[in-house]
């Protein structure tokens, strides 16, 4: 039995830019902004970083391939710098690279940095790309992300025999809650609280998802410096330590897309990764033990099914929990305290690290009272990349000692 990652790596410092339509900033500016804050927080210099991972998925307009754009922009001193791409889990994958390097003993201090500049495409939504290869261009539909995730709603409604207007009410609450939280966050992309009527009445993007059921497409960057507990104690004696408790990835087997067993109303990879993560972190009852979550709410329906896939809500009961305020900022498990992808924004490669940034700062009690989670112990982050039938899921758990 493998030992896992629990308690072997700690976060030394983090940085995160304001997300949004950063017309003034190139990817280099965003990278510099995130790294500068992270180094300052960590109390180290750039030369102390021994290895780096760059998370980026779709935007090659600015970055191109590989990691040389980032190493060149940040002028890192000939250290290993590796680009990782695994759809929307790219940021968490970069974090995993850095974490595993430290845990293995290969280095003591490593950097994970994610960036994505999506607003140089000239249109809304994610850039059109042959994300699943050329064969899919020839045989698959001309699909977009909202269209692919919207299908969770038709399958979920059919499976649980819940009328679509009832389901729409629940996912409306999901977006409403995130707007409430995002409005309080100076670094969020969308900072306006909206009414449920506005959400319900918004134009349809992909049935049954309206405009407010879809997250923001943003520019941004986030960075994490991780190290061994020994190095942390040396650099920050007597300071509380945010530890990596679990870090799990699960990737589709093809079964969802081609075999007829999957019910289409949830995500198998989230179910798989979360169970492994709970085991790795030693969590027995996530509904009782998890204090807060940052999940991949690319679309409101994704957040709804994720609550069940993570084992927080029982099957078919997520709408009830959501409408009861279970995941609101003052609920039992606040979900998306920073506004989530919905309002904080979604520069893909940065998103996973942005989520960790929120959990890290919440665990350290650094946020003002109006958006602070009370006495958090365990925080969970979750990314879901690709599409429901073909995806990558990451689940990470952090705790404070």
């Amino acid at each position, binding site marked *: 039995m493998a030992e896992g990652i629990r308690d072997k790596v700690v976060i030394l410092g983090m940085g995160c830019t304001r997300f949004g339509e950063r017309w003034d900033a190139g990817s280099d500016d965003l990278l510099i902004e995130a790294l500068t804050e992270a180094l300052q927080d960590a109390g180290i210099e750039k030369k102390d970083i021994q290895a780096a991972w760059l998370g980026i998925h779709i935007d090659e307009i600015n970055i191109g391939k590989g990691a040389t754009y980032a190493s060149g922009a940040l002028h890192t001193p000939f250290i290993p710098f590796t680009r990782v791409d695994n759809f929307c889990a790219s940021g968490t994958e970069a974090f995993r690279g850095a974490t595993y390097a430290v845990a293995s003993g290969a280095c003591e201090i490593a950097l994970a940095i994610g960036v994505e500049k999506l607003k140089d*495409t*000239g*249109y*809304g*939504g994610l850039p*059109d790309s*042959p994300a699943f290869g*050329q*064969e899919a*261009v*020839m*045989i*698959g*539909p*001309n*699909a*977009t992300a*909202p*269209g*692919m995730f*919207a*299908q*969770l*709603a*038709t*399958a979920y*409604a*059919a499976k649980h025999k819940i009328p679509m207007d009832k389901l729409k009410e629940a996912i409306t609450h999901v977006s409403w809650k995130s707007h409430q939280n995002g409005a309080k966050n100076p670094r969020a992309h969308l900072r306006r609280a909206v009414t449920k009527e506005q959400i319900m009445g918004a*134009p*349809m*993007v*992909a*049935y049954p*998802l309206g405009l407010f059921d879809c997250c923001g497409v943003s520019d941004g960057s986030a960075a994490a410096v991780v190290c061994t507990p020994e190095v942390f104690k040396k650099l920050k004696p007597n300071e509380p330590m945010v530890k990596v408790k679990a870090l799990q990835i699960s990737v589709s*087997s*093809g*079964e969802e*897309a*081609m*075999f*007829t*067993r999957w019910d*289409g109303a949830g995500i198998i990879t989230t179910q798989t990764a979360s169970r492994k993560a709970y085991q790795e972190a030693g969590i027995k009852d996530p509904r009782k033990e998890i204090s807060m979550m940052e999940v991949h709410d690319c679309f409101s329906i994704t957040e709804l099914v994720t609550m069940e896939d993570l084992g927080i809500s029982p099957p078919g009961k997520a709408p009830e929990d959501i409408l009861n305020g279970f995941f609101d900022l003052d609920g039992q498990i606040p979900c998306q305290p920073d506004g989530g992808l919905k309002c904080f924004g979604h520069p893909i490669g940065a998103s996973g690290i942005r989520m960790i940034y929120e959990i890290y700062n919440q665990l350290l009690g650094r946020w003002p009272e109006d958006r602070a989670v009370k006495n958090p112990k365990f925080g969970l982050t979750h990314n879901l990349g690709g599409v429901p*039938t073909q995806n990558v899921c990451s689940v990470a758990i952090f705790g404070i000692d």
Partner: protein
Amino acid sequence: MVGIGSFGGYVPRYRLNRMIIFGSMGWLNPVIITNARGEKAVANFDEDSITMAVAAGMDCLRGVDRQGIDAVYFATTTAPYRERQNANIVAGALGARDEIRSADFTGSLKSGTSALLSALEFVGCNGGKAVVCAADCRLGKMASTQEMVFGDAGAAVMVSDSEVIAEYKGSFSVSHDFVDHLRGANTKYDRMWEERWIRDVGYQQFIPQAVQGLCAKYGMSPADFDRIIYPCYYGGARKNINKALQVEQEKVQDDMLATVGDSGSAHPLLMLAAALETAKPGEKILLVSYGSGCDALWFEVTENITKMQDGRGVSRWLARRADLDNYQKYLVWRGMAPAETGIRGETDKETRWSLVWREHKAILGLWGSKCRKCGTQQYPPQRICINPDCQALDEMDPVYLADKGGTVFTYTGDMLAASVNPPAIYGNVNFNGGGRTLMDFTDCTVEDLSVGMPVEFSFRIKFYDPKRDITNYFWKAVPAVGEVK
């Protein structure tokens, strides 16, 4: 005995009332009011002559073993490709073997019957089965007579050396370089000479010439035939032709001008398919085409006809209809007016032919694979079985899925995807017999769909690459006929 073994038809779902055209364009050319009766069938934005030919072929080949087909002929004057055999795309979609004869017949509106004659002669010489698929999607300029008259449709005939439903008895052809209609190699729209001349010198002389030639050849009289089929959209000329041939009006097959319009190369075969839907054993059928001359063919219906009168043909497609209630949509679908689909719509999609060749069975024929170990059907074809409890390597047999049908598993209507017919409707479909895939839906609205609803598969344009003039095809899901509200 050589003759017709099966028949099929196809009329696209959308119908444009001719008064809508007149209402939009009558200001420019008021005389088009004279053709403003009824409606015309309009190909959906993802249909063309190839897709309609395939649809008719699928109708014709219901219950027919595709492995037994020896030739596939495609007739049209609106082939998407000048070099690249269009018939091979049709044959691939129909699930025919690779070891077949194939050919495109084009250049005139009688190409449909020319292809049929070639098929009859092929089977006469070689035996076996030959399929003729004809379709046309001709364009007239805005406010033209052609725009009023032309309609889009497809028809198919399978020629066979056994179990024929109508025996082939003989033919007679005339060929003229008579330029009533014309389209040059680089021209999109049909051009015609004066209509009075076309009517008087064209239809009214050549059709009787062909019929009389056939009768003289076989010692027959036009009155000996029970059904007479010929295309001619001039009502007055039809009367004159009937009079010249001394045939009674009720024996003459309706030209479907009010419901479909003139579907060019396909039209004589479309009318034949409609006739065969109700033909009785022993009936003598005279089929005549028109365009750069005429082909006249004589068939005699056999006892087998009743086996094929099972819903195939034209009627069910005519009944499956939806109004195309707006002329501008027609212009955009047919590429007659440029429409903005956003910067997203400008994404360059290249076609990698070596990849297409490797996957051509899966793309053209919706061929999947079926595991010999566990029986799981899967698409696209896999080497490792998708069944997590099996995972056998290289134990697959090919399976043709295009005629299997399936059910809706998930669906959506996407307003973000670039489309000239938003929302782009797509979802996951479970194949009957197992397997699942994500595909486009067409010929429906989001409101028509529900989880579990039965669907059929329809060969459609997947995307068009304007930079390289490449039309790519793939299968889409269509609510099973009868399911669309």
